[in-house]
């Protein structure tokens, strides 16, 4: 009987996808590829067909591609109803309807939520509204930033040295534009890779002519008489004149539209099970609502079933494919989302890649190459296990370390490795900031406790 129902769903069911970007598109393609022939609706608040974001801070700013031309190739004919330029404003969970900003609604048998994140805006609204103050998340943002860079600004000021901030600074330097980067932590990329690797990135930046200011926060953005930004004030009381300010302080998850819907959605994203099914606010898993991409938080078997939010391109693709598969198959055929976290970045001509979950690591060993040469592989360890690896211009080795992480290989690393230097024989502290302090765009957020965490004590409330 269940088989009949599933067959009918696959043949003539209605599937709605909210968020028409990377995860939404890949899910739609997978649904069709796996034989879904029913009605498919893609709802996206941006007026564009799905486009790719990573080039927006790299090739586009370097002038290799137009910001308007990063559309994602479509691997399958998805034959969907596109509702572009219209936001979903609510979800009627019992009625199985998505409510739209234009007053319409879309009924579904299965729903996929892939609303991703948006750029965290500069908190002072008046300052954020100054002409020349920008963020970078969308195509429109990239068009604006590219125009500013083309106009030959005197100085660009980047607030926040996460990956995006560093990439923007790199593009500026490549174009000969003066750039200052301010970071609250002691070095760039510390939230994602820790202080040891952050120091390498700091050297790379200064050597390339970036004016890097660490251990500072921006206290105010100053405008001129016609409302254009002209200077940035820092907590060390210095003032830097700049005519373009890029706020690169990480992202906020797009979950507000689900407020009051009964789904377990909030600022940390939407929690789901390993099969991508969303939890409702009681912590009970739903059967018809799925989540994928940057907006999802899901438990990962390899990392103690901790809930991970992974703001990574590869995660959006893999999770969308798993979610789509699970949406239209029988329970016994469902798959868990077991993707090994991985990301890349390129800046100042260096290829940075990582697998696993670096911020989970306490210690770090440089197992190949050397930090000084900026060509190395570093391995992160946690409780005697390898949990992540990072490479600078050494990508070909990463797959090997990925297998080790999958196997739960012991840490410190004892096996001999090619090009191991004396500095790599002993682990050092990876030097991540206190997780309770905010950092700029860690890319991975460990949210929630690990069930394996013995320190957790359940204290019932006394009434």
């Amino acid at each position, binding site marked *: 009987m269940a088989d009949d129902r599933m067959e009918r769903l696959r043949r003539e069911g209605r599937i709605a996808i909210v968020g028409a970007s990377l995860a939404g598109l890949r899910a739609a393609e997978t649904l069709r590829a796996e034989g879904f022939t029913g009605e498919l609706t893609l709802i996206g608040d941006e007026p564009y067909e799905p486009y790719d974001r990573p080039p927006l801070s790299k090739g586009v700013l370097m002038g290799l591609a137009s910001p308007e031309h*990063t559309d*994602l*190739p479509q691997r399958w004919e998805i034959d969907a109803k596109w509702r572009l330029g219209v936001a979903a404003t609510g979800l009627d969970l019992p009625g199985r309807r998505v409510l739209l900003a234009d007053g319409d609604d879309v009924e579904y048998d299965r729903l996929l939520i892939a609303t991703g994140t948006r750029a965290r805006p500069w908190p002072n609204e008046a300052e954020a509204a100054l002409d020349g103050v920008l963020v970078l998340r969308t195509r429109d943002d990239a068009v604006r930033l590219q125009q500013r860079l083309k106009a030959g600004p005197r100085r660009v000021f980047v607030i926040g040295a996460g990956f995006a901030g560093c990439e923007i600074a790199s593009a500026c330097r490549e174009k000969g534009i003066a750039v200052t980067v301010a970071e609250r932590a002691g070095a760039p990329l510390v939230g994602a890779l820790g202080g040891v690797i952050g120091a390498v990135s700091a050297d790379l930046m200064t050597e390339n002519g970036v004016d890097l200011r660490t251990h500072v926060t921006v206290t105010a953005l100053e405008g001129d008489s016609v409302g254009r930004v002209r200077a940035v004030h820092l907590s060390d009381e210095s003032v830097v004149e700049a005519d373009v300010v890029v706020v690169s302080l990480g992202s906020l998850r797009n979950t507000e539209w689900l407020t009051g819907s009964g789904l377990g959605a909030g600022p940390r994203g939407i929690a789901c099970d390993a099969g991508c099914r969303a939890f409702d606010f009681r912590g009970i898993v739903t059967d018809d609502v799925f989540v994928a991409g940057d907006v999802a938080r899901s438990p990962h078997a390899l990392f103690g079933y901790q809930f991970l939010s992974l703001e990574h*391109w590869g995660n959006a693709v893999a999770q969308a494919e798993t979610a789509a598969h699970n949406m239209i198959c029988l329970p016994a055929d469902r798959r868990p989302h077991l993707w090994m976290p991985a990301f890349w970045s390129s800046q*100042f001509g260096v290829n940075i890649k990582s697998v696993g979950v670096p911020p989970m690591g306490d210690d770090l060993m440089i197992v190949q190459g050397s930090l000084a040469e900026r060509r190395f592989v570093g391995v992160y360890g946690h409780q005697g296990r390898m949990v992540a690896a990072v490479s600078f*211009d050494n990508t*070909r080795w990463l797959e090997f370390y990925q297998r080790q992480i999958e196997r739960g290989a012991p840490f410190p690393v004892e096996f001999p490795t090619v090009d191991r230097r004396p500095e790599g024989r002993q682990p050092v502290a990876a030097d991540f900031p206190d997780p309770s302090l905010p950092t700029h765009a860690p890319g991975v957020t460990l949210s929630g406790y690990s069930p394996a965490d013995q320190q957790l004590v359940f204290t019932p409330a006394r009434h």
Partner: protein
Amino acid sequence: MRLVVDLNKCQGYAQCAFLAPDVFVMHGEEALAYDPRPDAEQRERVARAVAACPVQAITADGLDAPSVRAETAEGGAVPATVTPREVVTVEARDGR
């Protein structure tokens, strides 16, 4: 024609940059940058790059060659023979 490179998969082998230099460029030693919407006249070259990439990291649509399209549509599992061979090469070089 639209294309995207899965840069998690990409190993910086630069075959694509060799075959379609106006579309793919190496930025530094192993970082790849590319034009996601190349001109139509690049089609031949892009098709060759897609086919030549040893880890099938490039996905493109709007290519004429149907065989290439079928290959990439699989989602591009890494052929088992590719990576070990390359690792051996690197080992040999580094072990010298």
